């Protein structure tokens, strides 16, 4: 196989406060024509920096300090600006992580897709437009003829990502660079996009560099894997070799973290009749002006029923937009419920913050997903943790400091951090501080809103472990909101699956993950890529589900919200009446018309996960 890409001793420096720091050190690798190479590593490993270097580009504050990058016999780094411009988008194409951000919001999609090729003289506008439509069709985009006339905000995230691929492929580049192209997508969408990417790459016999932090995804796409850490190559090998016989310790730790965390921790359950800590009944909430019935214009949560006993952990799982964070906001008092009752320790929990008692404030703590925005960047760790101590317990001075140090111990942070500001902490440290702040209140209930999703796999796993430990030590109850099934599984006793504001399934964690289940739960669980090659091929059906035909119907807002995507929908039933709650034999409650038989998987699962290759329930992030 001819060698298309050869990277030799690549070095990239970043300007820092005290001179330059090397962020990519002597990286060398090569890639044959028609092959796919994956760059994998955690944040800060230099994988994106290397990918951008392949285009002769370094971000603001960085510079390519040395090395050679040979693409098809030309050293990209030796090209002048003009020629480099000609190369980019023409010979080397780039697919960015977040298509939503990488498309210009104020220009039509088609114009953006063909812009680069048009400028590089690949063809006339008409030719290129024709070609774009071809590509759209190839990439399984709906309405390929007209979708190009839309603006970025008018298409979904998965479609944008595919449009980005079309933009990259339209000039038939020698080399395609995919930078975490599915990371920002929901798990069910990710499968579809991965399928189309894989097909498009295979069909064109394109050479690609695939950047990702997700081994399971990479396993589906790449022939070779380069494992990066701290700007250096730790291991470079064929995919199957890395997956099965990793040489490097670091690679093995990555693989370890990517595997699901052990079985749910056995938690001493309180008797069922114990008074629930939190109970939610018939909750409806949303945003916008209330109508004449007092219902908000835009309803986010519909008829939520939930009971959380002291010390229990309930996972709330669903895609973005499913309303899971809104639920946390209602409980925290940031959003008053329009209907329904929320009771805490047997007392009704007022919807307005101003009506809540100091005790209620203290007993319920909210931990946000993104510690960057949840921690005031201008306060030190000491202040961040000291304030709740003063507010709740009146602790000041020495006593306060003492307790802050205890809290740092509790979240396994060194005492030296006490005077630092969040900006000087790592992502994991920030999340620990975020957690410590909640613990400072000695709460009964912590609302965890996607607390691990912004973190690297290894760090996220550590936070999960910490949460589990704290729960054991302090008897905390969690409302654990996540889109990541494996973290929920690792931590929670029960799971609530949400879809577009509806609670489609509720049950114990173990019951949830096995059929029978709500068709959406089924799709969700099966869409998580597994850490083995060939999984994507086996699950082709997930990408293009054949949906049973439906007669015309009118949605009065009460029909099943999953109707338009449901592979098991029943004409005449699902499109005419609202689904009701149903208890399955496993104890799970679903919101679906189907009976248990019908809920069994549509297709037999071909390959059951083996012991060596446990299923990885990883949605994204």
């Amino acid at each position, binding site marked *: 196989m001819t060698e298309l890409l050869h990277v030799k001793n690549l070095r990239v420096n970043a300007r820092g406060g005290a001179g330059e720091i090397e962020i990519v050190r002597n990286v060398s690798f090569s890639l044959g024509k028609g092959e796919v190479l994956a760059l994998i590593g955690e944040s800060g490993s230099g994988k994106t920096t290397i990918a*951008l270097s392949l*285009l002769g*580009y370094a*971000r*603001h504050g960085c510079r390519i300090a040395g090395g050679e990058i040979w693409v098809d016999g030309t050293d990209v780094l030796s090209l002048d600006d003009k020629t*480099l*411009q*000609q*190369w*980019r*988008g*023409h010979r080397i*194409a*780039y697919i*960015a992580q*977040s298509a939503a*951000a*990488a*498309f*210009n*919001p*104020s*220009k039509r999609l088609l114009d953006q897709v063909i*812009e*680069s090729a048009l*400028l*590089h003289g690949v063809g006339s506008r008409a030719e290129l437009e024709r070609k774009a439509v071809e590509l759209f069709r190839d990439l399984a985009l709906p309405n390929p003829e007209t979708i190009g006339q839309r*603006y970025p*905000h*008018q298409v979904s995230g998965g479609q944008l990502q595919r449009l980005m691929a079309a*933009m990259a492929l339209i000039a038939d580049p020698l080399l395609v660079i995919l930078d975490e192209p599915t990371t920002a997508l929901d798990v069910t969408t990710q499968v579809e996009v991965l399928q189309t990417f894989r097909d498009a790459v295979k069909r064109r016999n394109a050479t690609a560099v695939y950047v990702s932090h997700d081994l399971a995804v990479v396993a589906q796409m790449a022939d070779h894997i380069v494992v990066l850490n701290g700007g250096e190559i730790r291991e470079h090998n064929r995919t199957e070799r890395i997956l099965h016989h990793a040489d490097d310790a670091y690679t093995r730790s990555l693989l370890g973290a990517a595997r699901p965390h052990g079985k749910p921790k056995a938690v001493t359950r309180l008797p069922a009749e114990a008074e629930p800590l939190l109970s939610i009944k018939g909750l409806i909430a949303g945003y916008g002006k209330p109508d004449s019935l007092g219902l908000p214009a835009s309803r986010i949560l519909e008829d939520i029923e939930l009971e959380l006993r002291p010390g229990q952990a309930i996972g709330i799982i669903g895609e973005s937009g499913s309303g899971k964070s809104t639920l946390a906001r209602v409980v925290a008092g940031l959003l008053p419920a329009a209907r329904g009752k929320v009771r805490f320790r047997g007392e009704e929990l007022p919807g307005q913050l101003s009506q809540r008692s100091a005790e209620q404030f203290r007993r319920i703590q909210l931990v946000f997903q993104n510690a960057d925005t949840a921690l005031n960047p201008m306060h030190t760790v000491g202040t961040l943790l000291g304030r709740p101590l003063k507010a709740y317990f009146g602790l000041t001075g020495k006593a306060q400091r003492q307790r802050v140090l205890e809290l740092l111990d509790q979240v396994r942070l060194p005492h030296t951090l006490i005077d630092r500001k969040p900006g000087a902490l790592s992502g994991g440290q920030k999340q620990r501080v975020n957690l410590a702040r909640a613990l400072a209140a000695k709460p009964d209930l912590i609302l965890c809103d996607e607390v691990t999703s912004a973190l690297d796999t290894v760090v996220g796993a550590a936070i999960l472990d910490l949460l589990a430990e704290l729960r054991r030590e302090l008897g905390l109850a969690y409302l654990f909101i996540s889109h990541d099934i494996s973290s929920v599984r690792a931590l929670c006793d029960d799971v609530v699956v949400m879809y577009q504001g509806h609670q489609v399934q509720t049950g114990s964690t173990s019951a949830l993950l096995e059929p029978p289940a709500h068709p959406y739960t089924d799709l969700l669980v099966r869409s998580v890529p597994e850490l083995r090659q060939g999984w994507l091929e086996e699950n082709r059906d997930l990408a293009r589900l054949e949906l049973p035909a439906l007669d015309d119907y009118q949605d009065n807002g009460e029909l099943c919200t999953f109707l338009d995507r449901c592979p098991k929908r029943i004409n005449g039933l699902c499109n005419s009446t609202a689904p009701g709650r149903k208890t399955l034999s496993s104890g799970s409650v679903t919101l679906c018309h189907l009976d248990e038989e019908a809920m069994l998987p549509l297709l037999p699962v071909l390959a059951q996960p083996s012991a060596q290759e446990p299923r990885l329930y990883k949605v994204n992030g």
Partner: protein
Amino acid sequence: MSTHILWLIGRRLAAAVLTLLIVSVVIFAITAILPGDSAQQILGQFATPEQIEALRQQLGLNQPAIVRYLDWFGGLLSGNLGESMTNNMPVTELLQGRLGNTLMLALVTSVVSVPVALLLGITAAIYRGGRLDKCLSTLTLALVAVPEFLVATLAVLIFAVKLRWFSALSYASDVTSPLAFIRTYTLPVMTLCFVIVAQMARMTRAAVVDQLDSSYAEMARLKGLGNLRIALVHALPNAVGPIANAIALSLSYLFGGVVIVETIFNYPGIASLMVDAVTNRDIALVQACTMLFCSGYLLLVLIADVSAILSNPRLRTR
């Protein structure tokens, strides 16, 4: 244009009316507590108390301020801006010619300054961090700091007195040919440009830089587009919102803020009319001018907001 935008404009107009109402009360209150009234001002240095009393009676200044305000307001509702106290001319008549002049000066200044400001701002943004950017930044800052009467006087001295290229005075009524137009407008427009270009350029730069730092601009670079094309075709349309707002703020200066330029070039505009009106305590005229300035300002901001919406397909097509 969707109903959404119409609805938004409608709401804005309603808020603008409310704002104007507040402004009129504020202005009336201020002029009411100013020492002296128009009777004293009209009669001047050598007035006798009897004369002042008689004139007050005649002008209705003896009534309480609230009654006078309501009178004025009633007149306003019936479309009557009132009469100037100093020379008994209807306020509308006094405004007529001058409003045209003010708008003309504002228009010419905008036509010159906006492109220049955009050019400077975008250039600085493209070369951000570079030497050119720093020079432009320091230069614009220094320009902001020069008092405009100095700029104006210097310009007159050089271009009108020494070189005799342009006219030292600017009379809208003198303009009969394009050449006369240039002679008349060059110097005041130049002075005003000095004042507002710097600010607009800085804002433009900031807005464009904001966009150039975004992922889509990086993507455009990785697609092989040149700096200029990225700035103009990609960043600029998305920076329209903040830029339009900055331009609106700067241009609103061209209504009320140009009193010094009007004085030096003897340009009969509304700003100097208002200074007169304040001096003469001519409340109807003060109110009318203020209402004009504020309406102008509110209108510009509205236009800026609407153009921000129109430039953003997400808002436009909602």
